[in-house]
């Protein structure tokens, strides 16, 4: 038993673990953003809104169709992915040839529309979503009480994060994808349907946001504002990690979660700005981000 600046080690371990849980949310969300930016060069401002849509789909499935958590875990990301496909096919596609700023503006507008629509329909206080029976209760770890559900969140997001990293960096499909971002014309010449691949990548990226939404539903209120609370931090994570770097997004997400957890112990008032302070420092020292490469 030791203590650091008057904070006992038990409390510290507990906070570190909680930081890791929040960090895994950041990682999962920033992963989707990094995939979309890395492959499509689109700054997807609608990511937070689609995360919220994922949570709402889970709630709607439970309330109106009686489909529980495990079903939603599969169906909601698919639904959000399909929404993403439609957005990409009908709107985003037209903007690839113009400045990035247009993609940013379009997706920002879409985010406002999604949020406004859900707010109009369901109000801001949010809807309750129960923790699935299988994951109720928790474990006493000695230094803290860990709800089973939070443990599951860490495991699930780490599996998805590293699975995605592996698929993009270590498989043939991933190699095609990366090649298509470097030189779409050449890859197309090899007989690979690049436009379809790009659509699917966007769909996959936002499906990750939808998945994060389902994971978040039992912890937070399912509310139209849940995305906008989180999206700014997630953007900071992607910027710090290096725009488009997949490993960067995962590692930075977890790292910033930990850092934020520590801030909540030592100086809680600053807990919502610490991420941005780090971002400013990183941008000053290494403008491409921790894992990014200069282009």
């Amino acid at each position, binding site marked *: 038993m030791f203590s650091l600046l008057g904070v*006992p080690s*038990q*409390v510290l371990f*507990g*906070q570190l673990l*909680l*930081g890791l*849980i*929040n960090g895994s949310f950041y990682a999962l969300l920033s992963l989707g953003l990094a995939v979309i930016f890395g492959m499509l060069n689109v700054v997807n401002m609608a990511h937070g809104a689609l995360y919220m849509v994922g949570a709402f789909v889970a709630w709607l499935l439970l309330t109106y169709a009686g489909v529980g958590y495990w079903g939603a875990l599969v169906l909601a990301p698919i639904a959000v992915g399909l929404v993403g496909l439609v957005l990409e096919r009908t709107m985003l596609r037209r903007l690839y040839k113009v400045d990035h700023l247009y993609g940013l503006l379009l997706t920002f507008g879409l985010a406002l529309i999604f949020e406004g629509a859900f*707010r109009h329909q369901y*109000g*801001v*206080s*949010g*809807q*309750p979503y*129960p*923790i699935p029976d299988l994951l109720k*209760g*928790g474990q006493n770890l000695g230094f*803290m*009480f860990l*709800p089973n*559900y*939070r443990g599951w969140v860490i495991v699930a997001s780490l599996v998805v994060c590293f699975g995605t990293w592996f698929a993009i960096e270590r498989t043939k499909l991933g190699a095609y994808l990366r090649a298509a971002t470097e030189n779409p014309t050449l890859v197309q010449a090899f007989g690979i349907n690049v436009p379809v691949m790009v659509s699917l990548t966007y769909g996959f990226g936002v499906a990750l946001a939808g998945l994060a939404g389902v994971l978040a539903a039992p*912890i*937070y*209120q399912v*509310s139209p*504002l*849940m995305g906008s*609370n*989180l999206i700014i931090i997630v953007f900071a994570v992607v910027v710090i990690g290096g725009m488009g770097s997949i490993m960067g997004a995962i590692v930075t997400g977890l790292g910033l979660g930990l850092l934020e*957890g520590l801030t*909540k*112990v030592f100086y*809680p*008032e600053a*807990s*919502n700005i610490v991420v941005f302070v780090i971002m400013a420092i990183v941008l000053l020292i290494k403008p491409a981000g921790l894992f990014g490469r200069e282009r």
Partner: protein
Amino acid sequence: MRSLLLAGTALLTLAGTAVQANAQVSDNVVRIGVLNDRSGIYADLAGEGSAIAARMAAEEFGNKVAGAPIEIIVADHQNKADIAASKAREWVDTGGVDAIADVPNSAAALAVQGITKDKKRIFLMSGPGATALSGAQCSPYGFQWTYDNYAMAAGTGRALVEQGKKKWFFVTADYAFGQSLEEETTKMVKSLGGTVAGAVRHPLGTSDFSSFLLQAQGSGADVIGLANAGGDTVNAVKQAAEFGITQAGQSLAGLLMFISDVHALGLQAAQGLMFTEGFYWDMDDQTREWSKKFEEKSGRKPTMVQAGVYSAVKHYLKSVEAAKTDDSDKVAAKMRELPVEDMFARKGKVAANGRMFHDMYLVQVKTPAESKGAWDYYKIVKTIPADTAFMDPKQSGCTLVK
């Protein structure tokens, strides 16, 4: 010829008085601006519902008072004090607004109080809780209607300390309102022989409370007091259940909760919570009847803030009617003189510091088994009489009290 002259004179006199009657009401309309959060975390407890409540009060007067039409306008302050201040200034300077109503978020309300005090406009506060609004920052034109942090602290704090829960820890929203609520409750707890083990301040609009709750758990306190509101309280209560805080023997006290929060949490997560309320729709025939009308327009039962906006606007209009003018000094005097009597407040009265005294209620959230359906959420544990519910104006620090 003579009779014609007489008739003409009579007509002119009549016209003259007519003009004069209207001249008492500035620009011939009584304009009330409902300024609140319409899109953020307080939008469900105030928001459009408060505007509906204000319109319902105006409709009871046939949308006309002292011979002039009543106009209700609305704006969103987005929980930002600077936006609230610039909107209030715009309304008063160029919009011809006679009274500003609601303004939840104490930081925003303090800004508006400064402006309405300078510009001599009536300020009908239903949403904000900071006691400074009827204390050190009081105004001859400012009226704090529905609740305040002292009432919350006195009601809930006293009830829990009397149950033997003497050691407190606070989870506080880090702005004017949260700090004031923590301070008031601390005073109450200490005066009754309790202690405060510590406090943690979180930013407004936090989604993850687990870190703060864990610190609260580690403090070994009997009670964790949530000195926050709206979405913050909802998330904190929900996550406290997840971390098994109440099962481990600590009590959770929502120091400011609204029926909209209970509705959002669901009874499963909210059951057993005890807190102080200024209004419950299911109290008697009058409240049920008004709330039914409100629900038809808004789709929800009213919160105490929304019901309070109705009561405050109605009392304001009654005072304009009685004073036959919208002149702020005369109306403010009438508001203090007339008793407040409506479905929200029985035998209510406005004190010199602008605090409206009415009965408060200590409520406990029903279990899912006790509830008969949607919005059947509260058991009224105790009625707290007006004179003990609120702070004695003499101790409020308001310079208007002699």
